[in-house]
């Protein structure tokens, strides 16, 4: 009976003792859905020595946190995580579950959807509730972002979606806000699990990645050459920013693939986004449009990027960039201002 299912849940993803940013964003998004439905917001947290993180979930909007703490869950593995979450869902019956569209979030959600025979909408960027029919409306960009599709799961529960990181907003932290912790056992033996994580190799360079940058200086094909990208690095240096770019620039070999922004690259939402020599194709824009302040420099006054920016300068990036570097340097020296580095 689908009426038995009540409540909104969020997968709380733990990485090296911390909660992934996307999980806090989803608590924010989940809070809005739960309020609309007038139900509690739950988080579920699996791992080893993770119970202390529940308090953080309360402070970001959760009313309840379901915890399974077990040495087997120390590193993410599909099977034990699926086992634990499926059992929680069977017992407590939430109507909606959100997962970050991360490596592990997507992996887990796909396994659970099959295990519970329910629907899963992938890589969503908009979430809402149709109150009249008590239905979850999960929308995702399709075909390179040219079109949005709303996907519904009418007859199965829970209704599930993975949500792109950096699209939803976390609520301001309410220190001291509390909730209920509900603990459950995993009930598995290590010997029954068919995969082992032998080693985790972390790339420190990647860690300070685009997704966390406060300021991003991005370049497109209009930069002209790999050498000209040096100007972007100089500006980034002055501002403590990260450099990113379009797919065409990555394909030209001017920039590493991990620094591509857009539909098939990273989604970013820095406080300031500079777009130099970027035309503003929809596939690029979907990856940066949630930035707080977007500035575009393009020599074509009709470039679509100007329709996705707050401020625009029609001009040659090669001429503007050196002036901008100089001007920022002077301004920051005068104010003695420091840029908050990431």
């Amino acid at each position: 009976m689908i009426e038995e299912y009540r409540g909104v849940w969020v997968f709380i993803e733990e990485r090296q003792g911390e909660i992934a940013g996307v999980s806090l964003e989803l608590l924010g998004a989940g809070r809005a859905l739960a309020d609309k439905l007038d139900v509690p917001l739950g988080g579920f947290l699996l791992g080893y020595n993770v119970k202390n993180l529940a308090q953080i979930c309360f402070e970001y909007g959760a009313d309840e946190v379901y915890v399974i703490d077990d040495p087997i869950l120390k590193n993410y593995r599909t099977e034990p995580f699926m086992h634990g979450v499926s059992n929680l869902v069977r017992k407590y019956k939430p109507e909606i579950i959100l997962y970050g569209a991360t490596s592990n979030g997507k992996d887990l959600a796909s396994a659970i959807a099959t295990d519970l025979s329910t629907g899963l909408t992938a890589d969503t960027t908009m979430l809402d509730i149709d109150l009249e029919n008590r239905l979850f409306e999960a929308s995702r960009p399709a075909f390179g972002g040219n079109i949005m599709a709303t996907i519904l799961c009418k007859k199965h529960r829970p209704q599930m979606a993975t949500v792109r990181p950096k699209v939803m907003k976390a609520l301001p932290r309410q220190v001291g806000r509390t909730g209920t912790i509900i603990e459950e056992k995993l009930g598995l033996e290590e010997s029954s699990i068919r995969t082992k994580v032998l080693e985790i190799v972390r790339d420190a360079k990647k860690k300070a990645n685009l997704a966390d940058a406060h300021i991003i200086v991005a370049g497109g094909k209009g930069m002209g050459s790999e050498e000209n990208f040096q100007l972007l690095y100089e500006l980034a240096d002055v501002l403590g920013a990260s450099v990113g770019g379009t797919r065409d620039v990555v394909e030209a070999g001017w920039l590493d693939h991990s620094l591509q922004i857009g539909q098939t690259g990273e989604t970013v939402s820095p406080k300031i986004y500079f777009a130099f020599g970027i035309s503003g194709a929809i596939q690029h824009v979907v990856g940066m449009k949630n930035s707080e302040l977007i500035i575009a420099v393009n020599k074509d006054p009709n470039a679509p990027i100007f329709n996705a920016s707050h401020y625009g300068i029609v001009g040659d990036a090669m001429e503007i960039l050196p002036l901008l570097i100089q001007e920022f340097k002077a301004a920051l020296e005068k104010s003695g201002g420091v840029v908050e580095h990431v």
Partner: protein
Amino acid sequence: MHIVVCVKQVPDTKIIKVNPKTNTLDRRGVPAILNPYDGHAVEEAVRIKNKVGGKVSVLSMGPPQATEVIKKSIEIGADAGYLITDRRFAGADTLATSYALYNALKKIAKEEPIDLVLCGLHAIDGDTGQVGPGIARRLNIPPVTKVIKVEEVNVEKKYIKVHRKIEDGYEVIQAQLPCLITVEKEINEISYSPLPNMIKAARYKPVIWSVDDLEGVDISQLGLKGSPTVVGKMWAPKPPEKAKMIEGSSAEQVKQLVSTILAEKSELFQQ
């Protein structure tokens, strides 16, 4: 070692256009191709076979034209191909897709047990990445998604050792065989096909099964009927408002821009 690769025929989304009036896809003249990730999966399967011996089969669900992606897989080096095609498969979401593929895999395994299943990380049209883990769940074998390297395949001890990509690096994972992996494009470069493969591919006729050829299938779990998700509505996102343009000479523009940024984002530039 019997390796089965699931391959999907997809429209080349690099070319696909959306009709802005009707919000429908304009597929005219858009070629159907082998999902690029699946090409890398076939290549990896062939490389594993060349190292440890065995056989590579490919499986596709789609219309009769999907024979083309099976031929393409034979070109890359697969030994055999199976196509399941039936109107009753149509309109499937990922749950119904994995159910159909699972039933075909069961039948293939009856002929010759399967040690390893490979899928692409995702298909470039539906783009969910949900089918691979779904198949693994149904077969009750462990899944490893986002594989960027196969380090070791140990046929005797029945395990595989792979690198799995995560946000800030990669994990080295050992999984018991049989298992299912989904591959990233960076796992390999697809080699040029040798002439004999091309000749074999040109003449190749895959095994074709309809729903009735599969055993013990619950029809209600197939196609549109078996799909819990439905597309509610489609719309084109509203174009955003136009930027405020900063005028003047380059020097003036830059001066004004910098003071605007410093004012609007003062918290970033505090004392």
